[in-house]
């Protein structure tokens, strides 16, 4: 009987979630918490339980937003992208190291690096601007400009 009750609770939560179009992970994890609480009170009659679930889920709906960008996080991500580039020696990478002189990249490699940065941040860097970006610091500044981050 108890397991039957649990099954019903589970399906009613699923239905509820479907009706409310709950999509965010935060809400999903909190409705799981409700499920566990609900199982604890297996003697409760189902109507009460459903009401309780409704109250609890309604109070914990959250929506996510993009993580806030700072100049340091841009620096970290740019450095990582460059370190993962297959022709670059990860140990030589620093903010000041020049693509051509210090990292041994040719102009075609530089274009590929800039493309990888564009993909990483979802920004567009024009060819004229890209030609002036000679080291990682320039790239970070350019990306920060595009994303409206103070630097």
């Amino acid at each position: 009987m108890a397991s039957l009750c649990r099954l019903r609770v589970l399906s009613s939560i699923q239905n509820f979630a479907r009706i409310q179009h709950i999509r965010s992970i935060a809400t999903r994890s909190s409705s799981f918490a409700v499920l566990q609480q609900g199982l604890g009170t297996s003697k409760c009659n189902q109507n009460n339980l459903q009401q309780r679930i409704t109250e609890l889920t309604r109070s914990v709906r959250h929506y996510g937003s993009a993580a806030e960008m700072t100049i340091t996080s841009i620096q970290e991500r740019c450095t990582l992208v460059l370190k993962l580039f297959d022709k670059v020696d990860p140990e030589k990478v620093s903010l000041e190291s020049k693509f051509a002189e210090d990292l041994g990249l040719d102009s075609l490699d530089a274009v590929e690096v800039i493309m990888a940065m564009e993909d990483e941040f979802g920004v567009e860097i024009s060819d004229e601007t890209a030609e002036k970006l000679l080291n990682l610091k320039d790239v970070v500044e350019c990306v920060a400009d595009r994303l409206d981050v103070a630097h």
Partner: protein
Amino acid sequence: MRSQVLSLYKLLHRTSQKTFLGDAKALEAAQLRIRDEFNSNKDVSDPKALKKLLKTGQDVQLLLKTSVAQGIHKEDGRYSLRIHEHLLREDNAPFPCDKDKSNR
């Protein structure tokens, strides 16, 4: 001229990324080929030859963009073609019988 070459290089890469979307093997092959072709002509300095090479690159880009469609193999042995917005689609030639009718 230098910036033209670099922008063509980038455009070719971007186009191949779109054309071979989700096809890792073709993507890698395309990237390698683009790279090789540019590298093999890196010492060309004659303006005429450069112009010709640029034209070839632009033609390849146009071809990749408008004339290559991905076919996805389905379980029943048939292929589904991914028709994208840039794919060149020409009008069907009208049936001869329709033409005859309108002439009459």
